[in-house]
């Protein structure tokens, strides 16, 4: 099975970093969609089949907490696998997000941490690992 993945973050740099890590993770990918805030992300979720959502918390227009609440309230998307990728440090807020079934990856994250969380959340075990994404060589660009 190849995954359709949505990355929601208001930082284009962070989206690029996450997509880069995804492509090197060995997780089979069918498509990667991007959105800059929760409202835009919800539109993608409604229009496309998404298997995995990587979601920031602090964003303009609609934050990640609200987007996740709406996703869990919709019968069609309530079981979507979600990983929160954020600098959020409020334990209250993080506990609320975890209670809604989201895994948490704290920024800054070593790429291996994001990869391991993706594999755990997706349940993928049979992957070919392409090496550390910390390298900045052109050979590793996509």
């Amino acid at each position, binding site marked *: 099975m190849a995954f359709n993945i949505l990355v929601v973050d208001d930082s284009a740099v962070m989206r690029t970093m996450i997509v880069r890590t995804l492509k090197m993770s060995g997780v089979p990918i069918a498509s990667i969609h991007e959105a800059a805030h929760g409202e835009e992300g919800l539109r993608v979720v409604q229009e496309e089949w998404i298997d995995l959502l990587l979601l920031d918390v602090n964003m303009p227009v609609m934050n990640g907490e609200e987007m996740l609440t709406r996703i869990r309230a919709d019968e069609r998307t309530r079981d979507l696998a979600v990983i929160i990728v954020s*600098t959020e440090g*409020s334990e209250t807020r993080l506990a609320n997000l975890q209670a809604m079934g989201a895994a948490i990856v704290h*920024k800054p994250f070593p790429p291996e941490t994001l990869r391991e969380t993706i594999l755990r959340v997706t349940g993928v075990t049979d992957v070919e690992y392409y090496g550390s994404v910390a390298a900045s060589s*052109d050979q590793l*660009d996509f």
Partner: protein
Amino acid sequence: MSSTTAQLLRRATSSTFEDLAFLVLDDECTEEQAQAPLDAAVAVEFHGPVRGRLVLSVSSSLLPLIAANMLGEEQARHVPLQRDALGEVANVVCGNLLPLVAGAEAVFRLSAPEWLTEATVSRPGDEPDATLTCGAEQGRVDVRLFVFGGERSHALTDSSALAAGAVS
């Protein structure tokens, strides 16, 4: 300035540069690093139990390296992306520092990183609550934390609150 706040600023900055930009900061600047100009700066404002801003200045010679480590060599050639990469570093430093300073229960809203010019990097009358200067490669990194508002003294001078935040 609280020495604890300065220590927390150092911790948040070092871990962010290492994990996000794969850049190890030197606690002491060499002569070459000390002379490198701080000619690229970005600010992140925050609002919550306390409000303020974090200003991250670096030698512009570091920008391509930071961007390359975060995005890859190809993307790093684009100057706007180099600036965005520095903005993301500032955002993550700020996001990691605030719970350490204000406690793990505090909820903050961070503004989008704002690129600063020479004219806007300093505001008349502003005094930083904590500062940090480090060396990095052939350049320099400088971080300043400014806290404004009535709750500033509670959040930044209560050493027990700081300690509690630091271990949470």
